[in-house]
């Protein structure tokens, strides 16, 4: 080409990019900056015990529980859809799971796949309605939010003759070989060994003060790694970005947009069910209020993690850090002299900041002016 401006090797109109500005283009940057800021804040204001091993595990545990939802919600948002029913799905899947192990007396090896499959089926129904009608998923799953919550209340009352709580789950699963995978602490042996050798603090009787790593943290780490790998290193990841970026253009290029979106709805619902299973085994009972408003927290964590509300952009690592910010603030405030209810204020402010920040990032990436 003889006339092009774009063909000279160094275009004089494009400045070389400094490292910082290249980093600015990573979707997860905001969340990582947030983690650093929140850490600094609590280093100054909170009791020093917050950043001991037990303190860290203490805030990572709720972060992990939210994160399991948030990572799935992030994938779905990148794919261009929302699911507002995941909070209610936690209650609903908890009920299904409770009914499986208590009322039907099924072992975990049957009850867990059954619960996950049932949730995935509802996720699929969500996806099918959204794609068939072409309505925004926001409104379709808002309907799901109320229906599933209502069904959980009605169902639990029916199962328990009038109570909205189903008890007896701990007894039902106590001897099951799969229980340690979904509740309790991992690496107990390692922690006891470390305590015996003086690497960890111990109670007077010689047990370590920290019995192990709560299993939900391992699930959280595993899911974050898996989701990141899928997004960045598989064709399916490319399809998720494409389906969310421009469904029409993606479909014209041969991306199976419908299949991608329906799978994402199924994965999101299944992740909510996974969280329900862990919470229910841990608590020993299931309750119709479980997962209340978690859909919003999960979406906020995903947005803090760099997901655009319009889809096509974001990261699972971002949602991972977004969830950690959450856990730090919820638990961290108890280590400070502040009123706990500042949490809500913080939540709103964080969301607003993140959205403004993301918008600026999007303009940078697309070179919009």
């Amino acid at each position: 080409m003889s006339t092009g401006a774009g063909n000279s090797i160094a275009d004089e109109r494009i400045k070389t990019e400094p490292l910082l500005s290249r980093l600015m283009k990573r979707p997860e940057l905001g969340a990582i900056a947030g983690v650093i800021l929140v850490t600094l804040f609590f280093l100054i204001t909170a009791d020093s015990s917050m950043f001991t091993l037990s303190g860290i595990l203490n805030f990572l545990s709720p972060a992990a529980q939210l994160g399991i939802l948030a990572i799935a919600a992030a994938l779905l948002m990148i794919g261009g859809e929302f699911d507002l029913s995941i909070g209610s799905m936690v209650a609903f899947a908890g009920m299904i799971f409770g009914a499986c192990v208590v009322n039907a007396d099924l072992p975990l090896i049957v009850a867990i796949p059954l619960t996950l499959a049932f949730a995935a089926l509802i996720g699929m129904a969500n996806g099918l309605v959204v794609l068939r009608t072409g309505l925004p998923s926001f409104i379709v799953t808002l309907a799901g939010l109320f229906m599933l919550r209502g069904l959980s209340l009605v169902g639990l009352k029916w199962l328990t003759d009038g109570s909205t709580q189903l008890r007896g789950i701990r007894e039902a699963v106590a001897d099951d070989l799969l229980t340690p995978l979904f509740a309790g602490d991992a690496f107990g042996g390692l922690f006891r060994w470390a305590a015996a050798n003086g690497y960890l603090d111990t109670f007077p009787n010689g047990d370590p003060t920290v019995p192990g790593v709560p299993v939900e943290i391992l699930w959280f780490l595993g899911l974050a790694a898996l989701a990141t790998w899928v997004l960045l290193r598989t064709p399916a990841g490319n399809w998720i970005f494409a389906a969310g970026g421009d469904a029409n253009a993606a479909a014209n290029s041969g991306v199976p947009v419908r299949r991608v979106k329906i799978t994402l709805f199924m994965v999101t619902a299944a992740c909510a069910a996974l969280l329900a299973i862990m919470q229910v085994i841990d608590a020993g009972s299931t309750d119709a209020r479980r997962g209340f408003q978690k859909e919003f927290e999960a979406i906020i964590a995903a947005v803090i993690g760099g997901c655009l509300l319009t889809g096509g952009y974001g990261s699972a690592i971002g949602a991972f850090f977004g969830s950690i910010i959450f856990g730090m603030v919820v638990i961290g405030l108890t280590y400070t002299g502040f009123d706990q209810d500042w949490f809500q204020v913080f939540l709103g402010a964080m969301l607003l900041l993140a959205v403004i920040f993301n918008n600026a990032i999007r303009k940078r990436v697309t070179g919009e002016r």
Partner: protein
Amino acid sequence: MSDPIIQLDNIEKHFGNVIALNGVSFDVRAGECHCLLGDNGAGKSTFIKTMSGVHQPTRGSITFEGKPMSFGSTREAMEAGIATVFQDLAMIPLMSVARNFFMGREPVKGWGPFRRFDVDHANAVTMAEMKKMGINLRGADQAVGTLSGGERQTVAIARAVHFGAKVLILDEPTSALGVRQTSNVLATIDKVRKAGVGVVFISHNVRHAMAVGDRFTVLNRGKTLGTAKRGEITAEQLQDLMAGGQELAQLESTLGGTV
């Protein structure tokens, strides 16, 4: 001259009682740029959608590589080697050039659960293909949104050619571009043609068509008014045919021949 890759004879397309195409004949040979000219509403869009498998013709025959053919979908047409670059380009601004380039056709390596998107290969191929078209990217991970309109058009063309297009249909590729970007795209078309691809260049801009076209077919009110080779027809004659004669001639005299 070689046989046409694709030949369409007397294509008619009716939508209910609307006759969008009423006898269109068109063909394209390897290594030529055949321009399809027509004013708005002449039936250009309907015709390329028929050629690319979106619509099935009501009457008339399509011959592809010597065999009668009827495409049920764009997918079938694409697999046969007919690639269409529509005006929306099927590009996603937030995604990198390489990810757009391989969208829906990602190269993979590894096996079983470790089968993964071969990002390095995708990046290298994208950089090389773009370089062939005369565009030096800063990096294959540059977002498409940061490219100019002409560069995006070139990415779309390079992508179609890379994936084995024998016939490349370009729907008004220069209509939204500035002067310099237009010449870039026209130069790209020239490169593609020299690589042996049959290019169908749809436009209503006679000057752009004259710059690269080997043959010119004018579409007016759903009919082809005949095909002329380069050198057999002047820009003014083409313009007249497109507009259907008289009126424009009068207008042109008042405007001083600049339309």
